């Protein structure tokens, strides 16, 4: 027979691996460092790839500083909209989104969230497999048959992800604590080599040819770099809440996430990548790293960065598995089987790594444009309209008596605002053609779109939702059908 302690430990484990609220004394991330290193490792995986493209804004230094600004400006609203409610109630960000989108309407956020998490995980698997093959080809004189080896490596990466993720978030907290500091040290070594080889003056003025740049205007170039940063930070929306629901201290909700995910993991590593790419003349890290580091050191550094991407893949798949339990049938499966099902399409993609990089990445860039509307709505809903107070019980009910039922379980006003935010964003800036509106050079696109969505939702809530008595907003009559109990909680049936 199990003791009380064992039962509590098992229940906590089930909550952490599932959608149940995680209570304050069960939270895994108790120190500044644990959050810092997870966020650093998650950002660093992409940083050299993004950094290699920053010189495209016309001036490399403008690109580096603008990207830093964009990461900070993007992380703050994501932290407040997604991180704060998840931290307070220990809930998954999709459950948090139900307050604004409705208990059924949150499926929109779920689809965007799942496709982003799983899509980027598959992209990373493909990138790692192709990177290792490039490395092997460069290291040996012999010709290597690319496709079969890439498939084999991708399958091996999927197996590793499954083996690590099934052990829960504690394991990647430990992995991040080793990997992230090493990533920073390796980046520091690369910076020292760059400075030693080219000198600070030459390095500081390294730019790509004007004919290859998007613009020669520093103001517009800066706005492009800010946009890259904000868009990257906004794609953290499903990640942020997933991390803060496991965070114990309030002071760790924003600071370590911005410092780790924005400043160290993204801006610093991207800056070194940008300088190296501009100097060597290629955006591909697997090429410039070999040029700068030489055959031996360059190969070792590249191999380390490719392998360290496994931490990010594990984090993405873990968060996708938790979010996917919103689907009733999936919430009844064992954790191991659920992870297997999420990784199953990856076996097909392992045979088509080139297609994944070409098609999935283009699709993901358009998928990401919906985050602006979602974040704007959640920000104003949680901070302004609800004054940081949710009724957690009503997030877990599928009853019309629930506060967040709106119209048939869907808040159509929020859905319309998200839909309208997509063409507005694309009018400001098209992420595939880089075409921009006149106002883009001063404001960018993601931030004004988010603010417009927030303002539109605020206005429509006062005009449509509250007068209709929907949404359980302060002063509206929603939720009156549920019976209050002695503790003030409604006697409403809750279900996963």
């Amino acid at each position: 027979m199990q003791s009380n302690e064992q039962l509590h430990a098992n229940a906590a484990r089930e909550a952490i691996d599932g959608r149940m609220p995680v209570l304050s004394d069960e939270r895994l991330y108790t120190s500044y460092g644990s959050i810092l290193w997870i966020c650093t490792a998650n950002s660093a995986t992409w940083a050299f790839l993004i950094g290699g493209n920053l010189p495209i804004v016309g001036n490399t230094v403008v690109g580096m500083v603008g990207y830093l600004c964009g990461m900070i400006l993007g992380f703050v609203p994501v932290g407040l909209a997604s991180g704060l409610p998840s931290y307070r109630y220990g809930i998954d960000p999709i459950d948090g989104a139900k307050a604004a989108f409705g208990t059924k309407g949150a499926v929109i956020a779920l689809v965007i969230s799942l496709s982003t998490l799983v899509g980027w995980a598959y992209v990373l698997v493909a990138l790692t497999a192709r990177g290792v093959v490039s490395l092997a080809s460069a290291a040996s004189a012999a010709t290597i048959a690319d496709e079969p080896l890439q498939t084999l490596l991708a399958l091996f990466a999927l197996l590793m992800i499954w083996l690590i993720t099934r052990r829960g978030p504690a394991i990647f907290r430990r992995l991040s604590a080793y990997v992230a500091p090493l990533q920073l040290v390796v980046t520091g070594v690369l910076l020292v080599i760059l400075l030693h080889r080219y000198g600070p003056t030459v390095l500081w003025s390294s730019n790509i040819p004007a004919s290859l740049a998007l613009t020669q205007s520093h103001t517009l170039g800066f706005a492009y770099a800010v946009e890259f940063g904000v868009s990257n930070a906004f794609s953290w929306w499903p990640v942020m809440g997933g991390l803060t629901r496991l965070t114990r201290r309030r002071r760790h909700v924003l600071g370590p996430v911005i410092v780790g995910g924005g400043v160290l993991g993204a801006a610093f590593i991207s800056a070194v990548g940008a300088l190296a790419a501009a100097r060597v003349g290629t955006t591909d890290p697997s090429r410039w790293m070999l040029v700068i580091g030489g055959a031996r050191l360059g190969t070792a550094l590249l191999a380390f960065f490719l392998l360290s991407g496994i931490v990010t893949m594990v984090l993405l798949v873990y968060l996708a598995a938790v979010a996917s339990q919103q689907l009733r049938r999936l919430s009844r499966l064992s954790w191991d089987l659920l992870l297997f099902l999420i990784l199953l399409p990856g076996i097909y993609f392992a045979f088509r790594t080139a297609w994944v990089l070409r098609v999935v990445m283009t699709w993901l860039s358009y998928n990401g444009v919906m985050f602006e509307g979602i974040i704007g709505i959640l920000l104003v809903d949680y901070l302004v309209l609800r004054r940081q107070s949710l009724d957690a019980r009503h997030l877990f009910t599928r009853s019309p008596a629930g506060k967040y039922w709106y119209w048939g379980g869907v808040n159509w006003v929020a859905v319309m605002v998200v839909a309208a935010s997509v063409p507005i964003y694309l009018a400001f800036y098209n992420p595939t053609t880089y075409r921009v509106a006149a106002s883009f050079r001063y404001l960018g696109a993601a931030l004004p779109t988010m603010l417009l969505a927030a303002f539109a939702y605020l206005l429509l809530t006062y005009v449509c939702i509250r007068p209709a008595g929907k949404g359980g907003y302060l002063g509206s009559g929603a939720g009156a059908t549920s019976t209050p109990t002695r503790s003030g909680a409604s006697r409403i049936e809750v279900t996963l």
Partner: protein
Amino acid sequence: MSAEDQLNADLERRLRALEEPPHATSECMQRTGLLLMEALAWVTGAVTLWVTAVFWL
């Protein structure tokens, strides 16, 4: 009790625990004024950097 009923009963217990100590008295449920100030400080710093960089770079 079926597995589904067991899960829902566990959820019920957890939702109740959110309203009681130790969670209700933990940092999670306390005021977030300092956090909002921190957010404002980050935004102010980034905007200042943006404006400064456009004039000086």
